[in-house]
């Protein structure tokens, strides 16, 4: 009967996909359902800056061809939103009003871009870079040599910035608390790092808070369409404004399930939530760290993939604990290039 | 009027205990939502149930058309025959076995167009069957063409300008054909409909019940719930159901269709006559068909 188990995985990011892969290897007969909000199969989000290098066919970003899921008998459910999880009945409720029963559930819903509450009223004027669709949308909005204002920063945003500079666009970075998220840097390091960014050709503005964002009537070609005003009176203009303040875990749909949640899903070092048959992996979970005596997030695709793999193994009988797969130190080489583990993917 | 609360569980108990549901088949009727036929397919079981006629002793025969889907939705014997040929087949069934309650079902087109030639003969022979005619004045199954009872001026796909032909008056026809029980009902009045079906079945001889029933899909102007609801009246108290002329007069008034029993008389049925013959011919038995029935 174990063979016929139904493993449901919420999220097709690095973690979810790795988990599916591992599960299939370990339980050839099991049913595996992979749920995602995306309309596309798993693709490499780290690669998205390439849309600015002329790659516009989503198939170029796929990690596995569509046939992979059929061969592996992995039920890939796209455009599917989970609205609730009934842990007692072991059922996932989908937004379109379908009930999906599971034997084991792995939550790998990752995180979405965090927008500070004080900026929430400007939402309509802001762009995103979290998906292929958003990336293409930004690509279409941005004229050649156009300007992107990145609010906050964070390593994902900075990575995009590198590409944009490279492709002849200009970047204004409005530095703030999360500039090097998820790295934690000392004030000294910070100054050093910002200087490197400037050397890369990024205009860095240190502003305490954004006082307002306005849309300027788009004039002749090349005219900026957004004006950002800061608390300290300074201001800048840009074609696209990209808030980039790190990620917040997507957990709303888990509130009804009764499992422990703080910012993310609280899991043991073996990635088990407070519910026996529900695990979590990736950016969505806060893992208890024995030595640090606190729940903490581990970012970076290597960690996330390791979590996916570990969760799958523990779901199928093992009981191992999570070991970070990559160091998170940020260092500068020759005073010119920044090295972040979050930029090293293959 | 006061809005009296209705309590579902009470209603359900009532319906279940009545036993009428046992006369329904399992398959859901597939007519368009709003179709008057739903009312009839609920009425016949009710009537049979009240009359205490067992499903096994009932045969529902139909021709072709929306109405003729009927046998599939009742839990009795059923014969879905050919277009217009319901009465001959029904006659055969009844002639071969008196013990059966035979209900013939048909629409206006099936009964008075292609099958029109059969009606007089079933009537004059006084075959002991009940003919429920669903009159919606249209060919529904073939998506809305004029039928023999479509009103003059009525527009359909085959009379896109207007229908020229005078509508038949089936009631007057069957009255003159010599039907021994003639009544009229309206799908929008389920209780009365059910009562009339019951009487028609109880009648010994050819009983004809004309049922006005709206087609919500193809008739937005003529036989609508709105118009029928406003115009139907009850057969006047003082009407003498033994008076053929009075009955014909009632039937002639199509502006305010009279609901109820129009005519009722007693005459030997086809079976009676045939048995009389075989007795004349010197047959001594108690009636071969009755034995066949046992």
């Amino acid at each position, binding site marked *: 009967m174990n063979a016929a188990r139904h493993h449901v995985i919420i999220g097709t990011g690095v973690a979810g996909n790795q988990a599916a892969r591992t599960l299939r290897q370990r339980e050839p007969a099991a049913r595996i359902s992979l749920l995602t909000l995306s309309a596309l199969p798993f693709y490499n989000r780290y690669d998205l800056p390439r849309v600015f290098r002329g790659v516009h066919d989503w198939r170029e970003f796929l990690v596995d061809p569509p046939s992979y899921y059929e061969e592996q008998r992995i039920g890939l459910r796209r455009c599917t939103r989970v*609205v*609730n999880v009934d842990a007692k009945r072991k059922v996932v*409720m989908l937004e379109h*009003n379908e009930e999906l029963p599971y034997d084991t559930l792995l939550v790998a819903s990752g995180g979405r871009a965090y927008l500070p*509450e*004080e900026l*929430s009223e400007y939402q309509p004027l802001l762009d995103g870079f979290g998906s292929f669709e958003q990336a293409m949308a930004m690509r279409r909005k941005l004229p050649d040599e156009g300007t992107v204002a990145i609010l906050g920063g964070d390593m994902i945003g900075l990575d995009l910035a590198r590409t944009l500079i490279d492709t002849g666009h200009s970047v204004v970075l409005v530095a703030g608390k999360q500039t090097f998220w998820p790295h934690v840097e000392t004030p000294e390091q910070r100054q050093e790092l910002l200087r490197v960014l400037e050397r890369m050709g990024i205009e860095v503005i240190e502003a305490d808070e954004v006082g307002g964002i306005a849309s300027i009537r788009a004039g002749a070609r090349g005219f900026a369409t957004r004006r950002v005003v800061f608390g300290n009176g300074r201001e800048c203009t840009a074609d696209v404004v990209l808030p980039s303040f790190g990620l917040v875990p997507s957990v709303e749909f888990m*509130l009804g399930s*009764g499992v*422990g*949640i*703080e*910012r993310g899903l*609280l899991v043991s070092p073996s990635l088990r939530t*407070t519910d026996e048959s529900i695990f979590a992996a990736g950016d969505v979970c806060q893992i*208890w760290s024995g030595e640090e*005596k*606190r*729940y903490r997030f581990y970012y970076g695709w290597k960690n996330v993939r390791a979590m996916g793999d570990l969760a799958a193994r523990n779901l199928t009988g093992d009981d191992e604990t999570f070991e970070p797969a990559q160091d998170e130190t940020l260092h500068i080489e020759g005073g010119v290039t920044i090295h972040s583990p979050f930029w090293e993917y293959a | *009027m*006061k*809005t*009296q*609360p*209705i*309590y*579902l*569980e009470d*209603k*359900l108990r009532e*319906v*279940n205990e009545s036993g009428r*549901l*046992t006369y*329904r*088949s*399992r*398959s*859901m*009727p597939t007519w368009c*939502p*709003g*179709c*008057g036929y*739903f*009312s009839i*397919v*609920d009425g016949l079981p009710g009537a049979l149930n009240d009359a205490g006629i067992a499903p096994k002793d009932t045969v529902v025969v139909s021709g072709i058309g929306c109405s003729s889907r009927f046998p599939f*939705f009742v*839990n009795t014997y059923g014969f879905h025959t050919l277009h217009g040929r319901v009465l001959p087949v029904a006659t055969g069934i009844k002639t071969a076995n008196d013990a059966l309650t035979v209900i013939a079902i048909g629409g206006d087109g099936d009964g008075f167009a292609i099958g029109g030639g059969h009606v007089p003969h079933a009537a004059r022979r006084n075959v002991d069957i009940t003919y429920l005619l669903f009159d919606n004045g249209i060919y529904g199954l073939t998506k809305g063409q004029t039928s023999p009872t479509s009103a003059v001026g009525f527009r359909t796909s085959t009379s896109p300008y207007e229908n020229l032909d005078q509508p038949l008056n089936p009631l007057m026809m069957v009255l003159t054909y010599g039907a021994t029980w003639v009544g009229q009902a309206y*799908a*929008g009045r*389920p*209780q009365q409909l059910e009562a009339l079906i019951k009487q028609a079945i109880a009648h010994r001889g050819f009983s004809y019940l004309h049922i006005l029933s*709206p087609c*919500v899909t193809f008739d937005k102007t003529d036989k609508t*719930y709105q118009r029928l*609801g406003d115009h139907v009246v009850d057969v006047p108290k003082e009407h003498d159901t033994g008076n053929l002329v009075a009955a014909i007069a009632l039937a002639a008034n199509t502006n305010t269709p009279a609901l109820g029993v129009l005519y009722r008389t007693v005459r030997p049925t086809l079976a009676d006559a045939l048995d009389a013959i075989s007795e004349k011919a010197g047959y001594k038995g108690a009636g071969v068909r009755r034995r066949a029935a046992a």
Partner: protein
Amino acid sequence: MSVVVVPQDKGDEEAPSSAQVMHSEDPRDVGWVIQNIPCQSACPAGTNVPAYIRAIAEGRHGEAYEINRSANVLPGVLGRICSRPCESVCRHGWSGNGEPVGICNLKRSAADLKSAGHRITERLYAPTGKRIAIVGAGPAGVAAAHDLSVLGHDVTLFEREQHFGGMLRYGIPEFRLPRDIIDFELHNALRLGVELRRGQAVGKGPDQVRVANLLKDHDAVLLAAGCMAPLPLPLKVRGDAPESADGCPDVEHGLPFLMGLHRGERKTVRRRVAVVGAGFTALDCARVATRLGAQEVTIHIRTAEEYIPVTKEEIFEAKREGVRIKGLRTPVGIILDSEGRLSGVEFVQNRLGGWRKDGRRQAIPIEGSEFVEPCETLLIAIGQKTVNDFLDIRVELDQWQNVRIGEDGMTSARGLFACGDFVTGPTTVVEAIGRGRLAAQKIDTWLMGKPRRKRVVQIVPVQEPLRERAFDFISRQHMPTAPLHDRLGKNQLEVELGMDTEQTTQEARRCYLCNLHYQIDVDRCIYCRACIEVAPRNCIKLVQGVEVRPDGTYGSLREAREWNQVGAIWIDNNECIRCGACFRACPVNCISISCNEFVEVDTP
């Protein structure tokens, strides 16, 4: 007591004659109302929400205000600071239906938009000559005083503070609840000759009135002294100048902090403020602190943001004002510097446990996971408890050391009643008001020897659907708020500005009017399913069975898949959103609508 609001006095619409109105006590009708009007059932004061929202939608704001008053005497107040138990159960918020109706905001709108010359309508009872003393002029006391005075009793209200209102006035900051609103509605509540004794404490001390004497001079005494003592938080003190936490000027309890502020004392905070606690009080402290000029304000909670009993709106506004919330931590100590000033708070890391009986989440400290958060001011708002040491007569207490009351609302001492937070421990304002009214009812019953009023279901036919399907697509109206930069340093500036008439009407239209009861007359139904065809939800069903619960409410319908099981076609009122589509579609008019709601009538 409460104004009996029936759709009789509906301006334009022709009023149904009393012949059409029927009253029912059938448990199934009672059950229907309880089950089908979730907002009213969830309201501790039993506010007839659909009735007042319908009044608003039809532009009768004054009437809407009265319908509110009939259930809770302070609509304008609750319209601002209610904890909104109703909205969390609103049918419009059910999965697939969108967002709940802004019931609370509408309550406020009714108060804001009623005509200037609005006159209060109340059905008064003849004087009974009975004298009643009430201790404490908080929400519970005031509600009780109002109801009892309406019932013809002679009420005296004792309040320790200089002004009435209790928690309303001293616990809640002005930017959430302007004082003139409190004054106005308290006046209306107590205008029926209630004798007011301000600054008159009840207790054993000198120039304090003794409860024993109150009992002597009155037919009944009601204790509604609330829950005014902060829960103590044991904290280890570490640092260069060890002394007790109480001595430290930078550590203060939230409630006294707010009360002091509202008594007019000058309050200050230093650069970084830590607030511990998870209730409205904690949030208020934090938001006051930002207004007093703190640079960095953080609320530290034992569980997590998702589990704290505060409305999302409050949390959102607090965050916009820069307040941060950190979870899974319990304060265990404070660190003082050489001057004995606060330099940090020591916390222990928690993990989440199961759920407590009260529906709150448990937090379990983890051995040896202590850590320090630097800060210069600590405000402790982890809850309140009752004080009953002022009682000079012995009464039974429960396990939480609160006064125990019986079914009849009376304490172990004859004639001495108690209600509100004083009995239940800390709850919400609307809860307190509900309790106060209940107490009033019980006192009245006890004094008069029998209940004078009873609750019945009134059923009034409604000619046609009162809604359009389009209303269901109106999105929830957002409460306009004061610009962020205006708020700093201004404790008086009200943050929520109130909705204008247009917004109000739009929001009111969103209400499904759950008190409308759609039913199919099974005997006249022809099973044609025209209604199912137009149904916007899975709300009309072919049924073969239904589960009826002991309390008269309907459980799940057993749907029929086969024709010979179809006992009836039925409108599932639980799914029904009162859009009226079926009513309009039925070809034989076998669908009827009635307005079913609770009313109170005199007992014979």
